[in-house]
């Protein structure tokens, strides 16, 4: 089983310490990272991917520091999905997903192998993109494009998949479909870490929730344990009532919110 272990990690951006002393041992399933804007969720995710060096502490995948992995080796093991970055609009769905096979080739191996083709086909089928495979990215809806990035992560065959706000800009249906795909990825044995904004989504789809706030980890555990009125108020400065219902958690902002601290 893959083990992504963060030990006493500090994250700095622009000379400011965002997160201090983050220690987490992540093994399997879907881990949701929640917290207010600017708290350092994306930076933490990028640090897990090896794209950003932590100011101090270590981040190791199966005992090897992620920053020490050779880039292609790292890409074979960790996929980072950032839907926010602009992409060439004329690129077809297949071309975009096929790029996932780059780390599986040595630099002189230019041509796609039969295995590449099969992997890409499978990723497109699992994300229901087969019918759209020749479409250009510029013509896709936000939800369809999000599925392309998840297909890319599937075709990358990485055991750790890191998703930065996979459901932002998506409507209800597209969000649910995306999160179901995320669950399937985890069911296939991958460790999935997703930064999410909607607490309901974190509660419904994650096995484990990490709440960030006040420069560090406020809570870490099952959704029921981590998402309480207390932890949410400490993270966001907003009073919320958490309702435990048979079908999951519901969050209600209290009628007269106090001044945001």
């Amino acid at each position, binding site marked *: 089983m893959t083990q992504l272990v963060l030990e006493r990690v500090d994250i700095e951006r622009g000379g400011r310490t965002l997160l201090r002393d983050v220690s987490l041992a992540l093994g399997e399933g879907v881990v949701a990272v929640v917290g207010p804007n600017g708290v350092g969720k994306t930076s933490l995710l990028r640090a897990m*991917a090896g*794209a950003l060096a932590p100011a101090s502490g270590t981040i190791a995948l199966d005992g090897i520091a992620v920053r020490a992995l050779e*880039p*292609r*080796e*790292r*890409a*074979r093991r*960790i*996929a*980072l999905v*950032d839907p926010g*970055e*602009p*992409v*060439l*609009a*004329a*690129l077809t769905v297949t*071309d*975009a997903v096929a*790029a*996932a096979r*780059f*780390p599986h*080739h040595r*630099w002189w191996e*230019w041509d796609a192998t039969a295995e590449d083709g099969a992997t890409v086909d499978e990723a497109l089928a699992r994300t229901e993109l087969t019918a759209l495979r020749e479409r250009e*990215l*510029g013509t896709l809806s936000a939800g369809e*494009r999000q599925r392309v990035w998840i297909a*890319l992560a599937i075709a*990358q065959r990485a055991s750790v998949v890191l998703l930065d706000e996979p459901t932002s800009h998506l409507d209800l249906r597209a969000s649910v479909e995306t999160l179901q795909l995320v669950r399937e990825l985890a069911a296939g044995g991958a460790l999935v870490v997703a930064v999410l904004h909607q607490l309901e989504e974190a509660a419904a789809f994650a096995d484990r929730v990490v709440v960030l706030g006040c420069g560090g980890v406020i809570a870490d555990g099952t959704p029921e344990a981590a998402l309480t009125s207390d932890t949410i108020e400490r993270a966001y400065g907003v009073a919320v009532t958490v309702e435990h219902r048979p079908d999951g958690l519901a969050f209600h902002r209290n009628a007269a919110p106090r001044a945001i601290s």
Partner: protein
Amino acid sequence: MRLTRLLVLAALVPLAMLIGVAFGGAAIAPGALVHALLHPSAGGDAATIVWQLRVPRVAIAATVGACLALAGTLLQALLRNPIVDPYLTGVASGAGASIAIAATVGVAPVLVPPLGFVSGLATAVLVAVLARRGPRLDAERLVLAGVSLSALLSSIVTLAIERLARGTASEAILSWLAGSLAGRGWNELAAAAPEAIAGALLGAATIPALNVLRLGEGRAASLGVGVVRLQWALLVASTLLTAAAVALAGLVGFVGLVVPHLARRVVGADLRSLVPASVLVGASLVVLADALARTLAAPAEIPLGVLLAFVGVPTFLVLYLRGAARAYA
């Protein structure tokens, strides 16, 4: 299908070269042309014109076209900007300014080409340093630095022309600015070949990573592309290629800008086919344009750069305005 299209483009090059050898200032009868081509050491006027003048010139035109088209394709992919020209890196304007200064102060003519080459490279280094943000090259800064430095250096050229009034030196500058292959031969080609070959090999080695870069720098990095190393390799490759072309032909505009677009229409945006297609189209285009430049107003020559701009600008506008969809989503 892409392979078929590439083969068709590859067949265009020898065809263009044959036209380039067949036409020129002096008319050669088809029979004499074939005879001269088949018997290089036969002697006679036709053989001399073909082998001493036209063949080297066609080879140079093909090299210039291939280098500029390749540099343009690489730079457009690097900056993810379809309206980038290889001269953006400052190679041409740096070379131009030093040639203008050399002509003004009266530097020995033999020293002028190496001086132009070195100052072109120096300008590119300066542009690259200005475009740095940490270890990375910033695409926006590169465009800004390239455009503003080029503007400054062109004003030096203008000043030199204005100061020199009507001397032969000022004519030399003007001919360089207009882009021309007149009077170039095997020696010039041999001098430019190492840079051209080095640039082409370095550029070719980046193609798979460049394909991934189309997804964005962040995604490319998370897919295992060494983005910083790729950026610098591409900048060095396109600078060497442009420097070779500038040393051979002066300022030949629009090849580096237009040819990648033409090639993209034919083979699509996958760089594994786009790069060879651009090289083939660039070589054929400049060989044909040079043949026209020699023939249209014979015995005078129309400057190659001027001819290409007349053809290239309208073509580019039509292509670009017709396909004016947003490039990034």
